[in-house]
């Protein structure tokens, strides 16, 4: 359960990751660059969600809604109201956080499934509003022609330039999450996950902390969504459905909610799985479409939760720990 944070190891991992990314950015084809960009954006969402799931013990089934909300706020403000693109980013973050606060406040005080159901419903409502409120959202055809982000004369265009923004955001999210979980507040969150009654007895306002984590995770999703809008230059409701919410949850489940690097790993796994299914499924099962994917994801989710509830990507870490003989710390 516990996060074993070893700063030195993290620095090593960061150096390796940055080097790998730089190498990929230099050598990869545009297709693989776009895959990397999407992984970066999803990492931002997954980091927030893993704080919520791994530390507050709650699950949100509506994070695609927050992601979509961030995207639409950025799109509407920059196209219809002519805002500077950069200014729409904090607006998107703050607005999603405000909505999350309103929805989360009553729900976190109750048992776990209230937040799950409330967010599921919220995600569905966002989707309906995106489709129905045509005057603002453009209905099911969405909003096109979102202007590029610019720094002075230089505009952020092309997959390579975007790597800096997407992975910059991912790095920032990871750094903030790391700083949070190694702070007194992170300890309090782990305490709440261990025993809510005891945490309260030590002066920790458990439901307020859970709400704060939920709002924070929504803010991360809103930021990722806003960046996504500028990255693809259009938004439409189909990108933000319930399935997307469940995919975000699966990223955390695959990566394991208690490890920070679980978020990028889970995001990468799900994106690559999706691309693989898109590329090879027609060849393997002619005529088969999304249904196989749905069954596959459903069964995968069940299998992981029943067989490897700490995430699939634990094998290597466990092996390393055994080798270095840290038996006593392995609880």
């Amino acid at each position: 359960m516990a996060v074993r944070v070893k700063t030195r190891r993290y620095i090593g991992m960061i150096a390796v990751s940055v080097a790998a990314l730089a190498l990929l950015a230099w050598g990869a084809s545009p297709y693989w660059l776009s895959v990397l960009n999407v992984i970066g954006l999803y990492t931002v969402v997954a980091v927030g969600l893993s704080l919520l799931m791994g530390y507050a013990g709650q699950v949100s089934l509506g994070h695609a809604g927050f992601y979509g909300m961030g995207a639409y706020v950025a799109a509407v403000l920059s196209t219809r109201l002519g805002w500077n693109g950069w200014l729409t980013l904090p607006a998107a973050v703050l607005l999603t956080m405000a909505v999350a606060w309103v929805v989360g406040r009553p729900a976190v005080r109750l048992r776990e499934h209230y937040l799950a159901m409330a967010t599921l419903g919220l995600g569905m409502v966002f989707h309906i509003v995106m489709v129905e409120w045509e005057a603002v959202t453009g209905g099911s055809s969405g909003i096109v022609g979102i202007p590029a982000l610019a720094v002075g004369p230089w505009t952020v265009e092309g997959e390579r330039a975007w790597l800096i923004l997407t992975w910059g955001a991912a790095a920032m999210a990871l750094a903030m999450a790391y700083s949070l979980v190694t702070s007194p507040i992170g300890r309090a969150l782990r305490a709440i996950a261990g025993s809510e009654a005891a945490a309260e007895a030590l002066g920790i306002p458990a439901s307020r902390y859970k709400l704060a984590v939920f709002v924070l995770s929504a803010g991360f999703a809103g930021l990722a969504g806003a960046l996504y809008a500028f990255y693809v230059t259009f938004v439409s409701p189909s990108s933000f459905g319930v399935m997307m919410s469940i995919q975000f949850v699966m990223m955390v489940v695959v990566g394991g909610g208690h490890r920070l690097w679980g978020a990028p790993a889970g995001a990468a796994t799900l994106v690559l799985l999706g691309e693989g299914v898109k590329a090879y499924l027609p060849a393997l099962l002619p005529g088969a479409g999304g249904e196989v994917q749905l069954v596959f994801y459903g069964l995968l989710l069940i299998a992981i939760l029943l067989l490897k509830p700490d995430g699939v990507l634990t094998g290597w870490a466990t092996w390393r720990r055994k080798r270095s003989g840290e038996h006593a710390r392995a609880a």
Partner: protein
Amino acid sequence: MPGLLEVRRLTKRFGGVQAVVDVSFSVPPGILYAVIGPNGAGKTTLFNLVSGYLAADSGEVRFNGQSIRGWPAHRIARAGLARTFQNLELFPGMTVLENVMVGCDARVRCGWLDALFGTGRRRAANATSREEARRLLALFSLDGVADIPAGSLAYGMQRMVEIVRAFALRPKLLLLDEPAAGLNPAERQQLAAVLRQARAQGVTVLLVEHDVDLVMTVADRILVLDQGRVLAEGTPEEIQTHPAVVAAYLGEEVS
């Protein structure tokens, strides 16, 4: 002189069952006050009412001069009233040191923004809590197990850690819910030492206990509950000779 904790006519019903009825008592500062009574007498319910884990039907609870009835548990804790639980409630995945640090964290200043952006205040808060927790573990002779996950400790050891963790809040009043339950004689000795150490630090202790012998040796004053009502209140000597207590409860145990 007003007590540190003043309970007035506190009442709680569960459906038709009267768990605590019209209970009044006063805990003066600096003493070890014990609540005894047979199973189902309402001891734990009384504890949960005082510490904010249950809402009372009527009555008043004053702590340190303030009415705390209806306050949420975390606010009562911050006001200086710490408690332990009858069924151990340690954070099993965290080490003993981290468990105690959570208690120390109540007194450090580190907001959400400090935590997220890694300010110097966060670093200082971590250092302060760590240092304080190490000092406390040494004080209670638990420094040997500081880095062991709390969940893997022996049962009796977990009880001590829970008390030290509550103590880390630096409470004015420490509520202990049957701390001797499940302890072997050696561990009971250790517990008595921990209680003495807590009192030496100037903390008032309110103790719910099943073990009458232990209570008679450590308590300054005793409240006897029976079926949710106060049967008697007084010093151990007074309780031992109280006719109602002897008849109803102690008769077969203290002869």
